[in-house]
């Protein structure tokens, strides 16, 4: 079957025939309508009305089938499903997206390595330390995520319970530093291999030896005692630690990529022209290296291009020219420049052939043109291949560069935090490292059990400074001198001699607080030392919801 209808020798339409179809309004009107969104589709292949009718038809059928189904389907009572499992996670940060950020490290499984967290803590991963969920060893790169919680604000934001349940006896933890470490490969959690351990040197501002090591077992939903840590004095300057930055993942030299090597231009052979017998021609030898396109043919003559048939160059022949130059032009003609003393002549010429030389030149041209096309074909292929290789390399580099920029940005942010953290620790009495090894990823805490504050017992209620009743969540009593947060239930006790404050959350994530000064203002004589007092705490609240841990630190720091 014919794919194409072939017309041979059929003339193009006449101007008058075409004029019948020429009307700018045929274009301009639909253009205007398309701009006002009316009926553009009508002018573009007429598909809209058809499409609309299909849509309308479909809608009618759908409504019809819905009604039929509604009438025909017997009513079945669906069993009511009751959720019986408690799904609240054990670690439940009180404010979404407000938590201590993880710092990420990449570790090559077969090499292991030591990494430094922004506080200066060191994490040492041994070689071949990882297994997957099936218990099989893994290779390649693993992403480690690590963060620490050192003060009231960080512990508050973490949502990690500081209550310790020992055989039903609940007490609270005072922390000398808590950290969380997790690891992933391709976003899937990985675990520490059997008989391997990850060493942690966690910086701490508490050098006392009364602290034990606990692991947060989220499946048992409790802290589990894991022994004792070792305390090492850290002589380093914290600012030095702050300046310790991981190296860039990509070297500058990796970014530079030379452009693909250009294949030299292949000269197209010039089609030989027939000599015009009415015009003057001349002969002269050309350097075959300078003019290879001419050198391929024998017996070339040069014909004047820019002169009429009456041109008589006889005057040119009478002189012995001192210098002759031939310059190739883009249109396959040449300029011949003749110089004799001060006289200069310049003429446009082109190579011509006659008789048998022309026949020879023509057949040579055919061969040369074929060779030329083949060479051109090869060149195109090669250039295409090189371009593709180049584009691929370029894309790889760009991808790496993107990763590098993201990495550097992250590092810059971490460094900012690091400096801030180091500066915030200037009041620390001493800095030590609490050293321990872990065999399970998760949350680890250097803790000492601490008794809940005793003193005045109150049934607490809360109100705003405008005397409006206040409902608080995540309410804690905090003694400034103890690194612990004590959850407040309706009835709690506080030590009137301690520097206390209360923090909690008010919808929507505003921080409510009762400061040590507010505690000082409580009229102690009105509260019974023995027995239960009813007391309403008048809370201050932030104007806006809390958006970062730093914000909590700043507010608490001022209390």
């Amino acid at each position, binding site marked *: 079957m014919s794919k194409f209808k*072939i017309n041979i020798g059929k003339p*193009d339409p006449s101007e008058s025939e*075409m004029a019948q*179809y020429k009307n700018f309004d045929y274009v*301009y009107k639909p253009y205007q309508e398309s701009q006002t969104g009316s009926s553009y589709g009508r002018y573009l292949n007429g598909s809209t009305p058809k499409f609309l009718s299909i849509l309308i038809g479909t809608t009618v059928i759908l409504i019809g089938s819905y009604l039929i189904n509604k009438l025909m389907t017997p009513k079945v009572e669906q069993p009511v499903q009751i959720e019986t499992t408690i799904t609240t996670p054990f670690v439940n940060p009180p404010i979404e997206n407000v938590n201590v950020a993880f710092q990420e490290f990449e570790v090559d499984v077969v090499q292991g390595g030591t990494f430094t967290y922004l506080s200066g803590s060191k994490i040492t991963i041994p070689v071949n330390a990882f297994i997957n969920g099936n218990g099989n060893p893994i290779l390649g790169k693993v992403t480690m995520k690590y963060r620490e919680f050192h003060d009231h604000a960080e512990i508050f934001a973490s949502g990690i319970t500081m209550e310790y349940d020992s055989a039903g006896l609940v007490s609270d933890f005072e922390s000398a530093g808590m950290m969380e470490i997790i690891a992933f490969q391709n976003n899937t959690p990985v675990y520490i291999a059997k008989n391997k351990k990850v060493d942690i040197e966690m910086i701490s501002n508490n050098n006392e030896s009364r602290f034990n090591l606990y692991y947060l077992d989220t499946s048992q939903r409790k802290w589990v005692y894991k022994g004792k840590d070792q305390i090492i004095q850290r002589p380093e300057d914290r600012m030095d630690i702050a300046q310790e930055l991981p190296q860039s993942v990509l070297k500058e030299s990796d970014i530079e990529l030379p452009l693909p090597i250009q294949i030299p231009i292949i000269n197209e052979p010039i089609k030989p022209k027939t000599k015009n017998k009415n015009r003057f021609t001349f002969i002269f030898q050309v350097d075959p290296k300078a003019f290879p396109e001419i050198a391929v043919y024998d017996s070339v003559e040069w014909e004047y291009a820019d002169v009429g048939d009456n041109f008589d160059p006889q005057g040119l022949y009478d002189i012995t020219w001192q210098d002759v130059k031939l310059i190739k032009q883009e249109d396959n003609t040449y300029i011949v420049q003749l110089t004799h003393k001060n006289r200069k002549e310049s003429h446009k010429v082109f190579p011509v052939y006659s008789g048998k030389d022309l026949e020879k030149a023509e057949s040579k041209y*055919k061969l040369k043109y074929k060779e030329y096309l083949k060479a*051109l074909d090869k060149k195109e292929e090669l250039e295409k291949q090189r371009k593709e290789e180049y584009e691929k390399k370029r894309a790889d580099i760009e991808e790496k560069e993107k990763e590098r920029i993201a990495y550097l940005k992250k590092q810059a942010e971490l460094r900012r935090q690091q400096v801030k953290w180091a500066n915030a620790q200037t009041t620390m009495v001493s800095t030590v490292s609490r050293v321990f090894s872990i065999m399970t990823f998760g949350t680890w805490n250097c803790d000492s059990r601490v008794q809940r504050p005793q003193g005045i017992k109150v049934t607490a209620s809360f109100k705003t400074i405008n005397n409006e009743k206040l409902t608080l969540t995540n309410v804690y009593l905090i003694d400034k001198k103890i690194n612990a947060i004590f959850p407040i239930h309706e009835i709690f006790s506080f030590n009137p001699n301690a520097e206390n404050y209360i923090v909690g959350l008010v919808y929507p994530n505003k921080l409510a607080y009762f400061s040590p000064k507010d505690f000082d203002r409580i009229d102690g004589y009105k509260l019974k030392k023995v027995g239960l007092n009813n007391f309403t705490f008048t809370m201050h609240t932030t104007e806006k919801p809390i958006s970062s841990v730093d914000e909590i630190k700043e507010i608490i720091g001022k209390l």
Partner: protein
Amino acid sequence: MSSQVLHKTDQQIEEEKLQIELAKQDPKQFETLYNKYFQQIFIFINRRTDNLDLSGDITSQVFLKAMLNLNKYQFKGVPFSAWLYRIALSEINQHYRENQKNRAISLEETDLKNIIEEAEENFSEEKTSALINAFQQLEEDQLQLIELRFFEKRSFKEIGEIMEITENNAKVKVYRVIDKLKNIMKS
């Protein structure tokens, strides 16, 4: 049957750039460009449709699409007319894809002779008929190259501009099609 020359002097190019800019600001000004290129686009389409009414419709579509997309057109060495030819080829292809009809090829006898010579074959009635049959085995883009080069006598540079390929690539592709035709004719 030869093509309109695509290439212009620097002054003509500048004038055209100005016309395009004016049309971008005021669509009514597009009429100048419409009048300038209507006939050559109409002929270009009619050679491939052999139907005046259809050619009229497709020509209007080409100019409408050009108007709608004029803001996207930027002069980067490719003449405005080449851009119109590109749209025209796309519209013709779309029409025949949707309508499943055979499109037309318009040529002169001498064109066939030129192709046969290019294929280094001796011209004869038999060869001519073999060549016409061989056209049926070409892909659309291969036929377009033959049409532009041999039936419309366009330079490789123009072909490159219309088909969005390099001049060298146009040469190579035409050479490959000639080779293909030669092989089909022999088989």
